[in-house]
């Protein structure tokens, strides 16, 4: 269980203080897929960084299973908007890296990394360098690397934002498949409404200045979700509802 308890974030910008976020309260159950939707500048990335322990709240606290998150840890695996693979390592070596950091010998780490490579459908590209891969494949590799950390929670910061529309949809389907098999908790940041609906058990709409939770919307669509889910009649309802909210959020 991941809980955000009246978290507030203020930045000092020159001589004045900017109140960027909060207070935000959020409870995320184990194994839940939560998407956080909001216009740019609403503080959603800041919130994610605080969930991961990379930034600390000005007041309030983030807790995982009752323990305060004060620093980054393996329990909370980050996936960034850019894949940020190490360019000097092959794809397989990149995925093996987090395993090695847990004290596993290199040969065995490489061996185990192969499983994660298979999981994201990159088994033929283990020996390639990241610079030889397409954007979508790099992001798959980055996902595999984060899975190899064996985290309890996946924190994803608009990971498909830089991909073209088709690759993006493929990646969304891929992610639900991987998530379904893993039992992981996922917090997924996006500004794309259909993406938020398709992926999430819940869509948390963040907006306003300072950014606060405007709505916590349960998405009642059948699992497993496939490309067929996208034409489910309920999707349209959710979409227009969330559109309305986002419009108000942007205006605020």
């Amino acid at each position, binding site marked *: 269980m991941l809980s955000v308890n009246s978290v507030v974030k203020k930045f000092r910008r020159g001589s004045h203080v900017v109140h960027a976020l909060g207070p935000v309260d959020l409870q995320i159950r184990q194994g839940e897929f939560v998407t956080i939707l909001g216009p740019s500048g609403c503080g959603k990335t800041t919130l994610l960084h605080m969930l*991961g322990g*990379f930034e600390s709240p000005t007041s309030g606290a983030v807790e995982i299973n009752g323990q305060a998150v004060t*620093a*980054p*840890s*393996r329990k*909370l*695996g*980050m996936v*960034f908007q*850019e894949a*940020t693979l*190490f*360019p*000097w*390592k*092959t794809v397989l070596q990149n995925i093996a*890296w*987090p395993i090695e*950091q847990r004290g596993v010998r290199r040969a065995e780490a490489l061996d185990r990394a192969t499983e994660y490579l298979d999981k994201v459908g990159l088994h033929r590209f283990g020996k390639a*360098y*990241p*610079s030889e891969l397409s954007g979508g494949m790099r992001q798959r590799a980055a996902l595999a690397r984060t899975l190899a*950390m064996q985290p309890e929670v996946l924190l994803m910061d608009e990971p498909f934002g830089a991909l073209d529309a088709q690759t993006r949809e493929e990646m969304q389907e891929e992610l639900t498949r991987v998530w379904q098999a893993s039992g992981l908790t996922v917090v997924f940041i996006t500004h794309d409404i259909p993406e938020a609906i398709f992926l999430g058990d819940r869509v948390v709409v963040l907006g306003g200045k300072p950014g606060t939770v405007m709505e916590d919307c349960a998405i009642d669509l059948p699992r497993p979700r496939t490309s067929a889910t996208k034409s489910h009649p309920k999707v349209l309802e959710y979409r227009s509802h969330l559109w309305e909210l986002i419009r108000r959020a942007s205006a605020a």
Partner: protein
Amino acid sequence: MHKPDTNEGTRLWPVTLASVMLILCAWEAASRRAGSPEYFLGPLEIVGAAVARLVHGDVLEPAVRSISRAFGGFALGGALGVALGLLSGVSRTVRDLFDVPQAFVHAIPKISLFPAVAVWLGFTDTSRILIIALSCFFPAYLNAMSGALGINPRYLWLSRNNEVSRLASFFQVVLPASLLRTMVGLRISLMVAFILMVATEVVGHSDGLGTIVMESYQEGDYRQMYAAILYIALAGYLSNLALESVARRLCRGQAMEFGG
């Protein structure tokens, strides 16, 4: 439709070769023209002189001396420069500590310090290597620092996310991530080493390839002078080639920026 980029990857050997041959032929022709002065030697004559010296066997020893000075100074100055440069890139404290003294010494032409060092250590190999090392330090230091400063900050976040210690992160992330820029610095350092090698061999009592150049000039033996210059050029070219191939291997996957 256009052809795949031939500019990247493979070099156009015929073009390179043809332009070199053209220059050499023009040079040779000019040197053979009636009325060209006696000290204007053609490439064939220079190569002939160089081969003659090699056969004679009196070029190897000075060449080895010279090259070991250049490499000694390069290894010392380059290693120190890379180590301190990377540390300066990572740590604000180290950077502040070295910034002013570094900028001050950097501004001094290092060869002008040679007599000052010689006062202490004489015109010895130690003082020559010290001067070469000092000169090699700066390109290595500045490039390694800028490489480390330019690292994608997300790489360091990845380290933190994986609970990797700062020390381990320095070797596993900072070092390879700055490698490309660091190697550029080292290649400049290597060339600087050869410049200072010659400079320190020309000043004071010495031996080595630089000394042969100077002495041949004074004796008016231009064939020998050019032969020595050719050996210096050859040594510099080959060591640069060796360093480049090391760099290429180390920077696999991120070596796209290296020119052919």
